[in-house]
């Protein structure tokens, strides 16, 4: 089965299968034997092909954090269903998330409003700088989650879109 991880802005398709005592990673055209083992002293070792390297891994929900070669990286597992929904024109595109922590300066739309791509949905402030969030596509406002003055963390869902009335799903 195909799975995917988001790393930064890019999405990477992968598949995993069993191979003898360990696993095989399928990425693009390549196939690599991989394994992850914890040694008695609690350290975690990753094997990728012929490479054997210590890693630290932490997970939370769909997020996987990996410390590798002296750097931390964050990956997000994409559920196959979520990806299908996104490909159908809805899904993640419908959730307007906060690009950084901050507070709401103004909300320019209300639930039920029809919006067109590029239209200002709300204005937020972070580090004394204002940022305008615009509609990524045509649609209607399903829900507004925050009001003026409220604060939020990064990735908080600020607003939800849905298909405009009369528009096919």
């Amino acid at each position, binding site marked *: 089965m195909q799975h995917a991880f988001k790393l930064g802005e890019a999405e990477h398709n992968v598949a*995993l299968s069993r191979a003898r005592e360990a696993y095989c990673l399928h*990425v693009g055209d390549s*196939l*690599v034997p991989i394994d992850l083992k914890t040694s008695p002293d609690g350290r975690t070792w990753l094997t990728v092909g012929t490479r054997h390297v210590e890693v*630290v891994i932490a997970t939370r929900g769909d997020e996987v954090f990996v410390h590798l070669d*002296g750097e931390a*990286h964050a990956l997000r597992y994409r559920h196959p269903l979520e990806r299908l929904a996104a490909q159908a024109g809805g899904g993640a595109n419908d959730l307007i998330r906060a*690009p950084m922590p901050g507070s709401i300066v103004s909300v320019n739309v209300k639930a039920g409003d029809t919006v067109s791509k590029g239209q200002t949905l709300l204005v937020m402030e972070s580090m004394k700088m204002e940022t305008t969030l615009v509609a990524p596509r045509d649609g209607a406002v399903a829900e507004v989650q925050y009001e003026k003055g409220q604060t939020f963390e*990064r990735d908080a869902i600020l607003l939800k879109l849905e298909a405009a009335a009369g528009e096919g799903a």
Partner: protein
Amino acid sequence: MTDVSRWPFSTVLVANRGEIAVRVLRTVQKLGLKGAVVFHAADRNAPAVRMADHAIEITGSTPVAAYLDGAQILAAAKSCGAGAIHPGYGFLSENTGFARAVESAGLVFIGPKPEQIELMGDKVRARNFVEKGGFPVAPSAIEDDGPATFVERSRTVGTPLLIKPSAGGGGKGMRIVRDLSVLEAEIERARSEGQRYFGDGRLYCERYIENPRHIEVQVLGDSHGNVVHVFERECSVQRRFQKIVEETPSPALTPELRAQICETAAGIARSAGYRGAGTVEFIFGPSGEFYFLEMNTRLQVEHPVTEEITGKDLVLEQLRIAAGEPLGYAQGDVSAQGHAIEFRIYAEDPGRGYTPTTGPILALRPPQGDGIRWDSGVVQGGEVTAAFDPMIAKLIVRGTNRNDAIARAEKALAETVLLGCKTNTAFLRRLVVHPAFVAGDVHTGFLDANPQIAADPPMPNGTLQALLAAASLSTRPMRDAADCVPDLHAAIGEWRN
């Protein structure tokens, strides 16, 4: 060991949070004094709260507001029998009104006299005071000296010049003018920014030093009139006028210049009758000229580098001075050895314009080893929120010389594991091996001039593959799906590919 039995206080309340609260409590408790701390509910599980002998909850409309509420903090001090208050840095540390209120309540304020905070807190007054004492200040024009002639006098300062709000700080509202034809327009813009940020539109102009270094000098003064300097720190690596890396000794100073700048700082502190730990900041030009910038009347974030090369515990010195003890040593007794560099670990994304990040701290493994110091206020299981400043820890490395310290730093930064919230450690690693940094050839505009250091470098294929492998094996639905397919099928899959 210091004898605290005759000190006028036996319990010290720390009116701060995070790493500095832990840092101050460490020395307080080592001396055999009791340490108390105030905390907002957002910090309930913070290390300082667990470490303190008394922890008193304070409230506020925002978490920051709680730590700025002097009346509540004073009440907390009384409730736990604290005889002294250490303000740390930020928050109320340079608030004259708070220092006065502490003293009027009969408690000891661990810091300078209120009038010294007041003098140095007003940039214009401080600058005039320093200039009158015969110490170097940059050519300037001050609006308050005659608002009607301000623009005219600004022209005579010469270009490039810098316009600053008198009440300012942190780089807000500052504007550089290279062409006098836009001077008036820029003055108006700076005024409106000063009004917006500080509620005060008064300005001053000074000659702008291109590619300057930021060099500051640590001073200590007791209540008996003794003042010494504890050498310099260079803090030229900055982003948005905020320090990121600080080191001592400065790679820019010859022994002669070092003596000159350190003596100047001690002289300024002496002329103010300064009591406590303070820092005199200078702007240092490419040809070795230096001018007084400002004096910070508190313990600095970057104080550990000074401690690492001099062996002095600056918090201990602050406590001794507050207790009325004389310094007990002369300038000639203060010596330094080796090189120390501090890195501020920020919850931020350098590749996205240093925007702050938030998140849970799912894994935390500080670096360890000889010459490595980790001052932090966060623990695994904690959370970084947008409620406070994004600095979550400080990594301090010490080496026999600068190259040794840099090598140690690169290794320690790589060994620093913090998962769940993006930090700037990878960026700091790129910075510390950058040829200009290694050569000590930096200035306060260095990061702006070299944005590629902040940008995420392209990821090697091998790294991407390893990350996908680690993530796949750590994702339950993927592992489960793979485990339920027998090896034979997987092998068929192999042929298909």
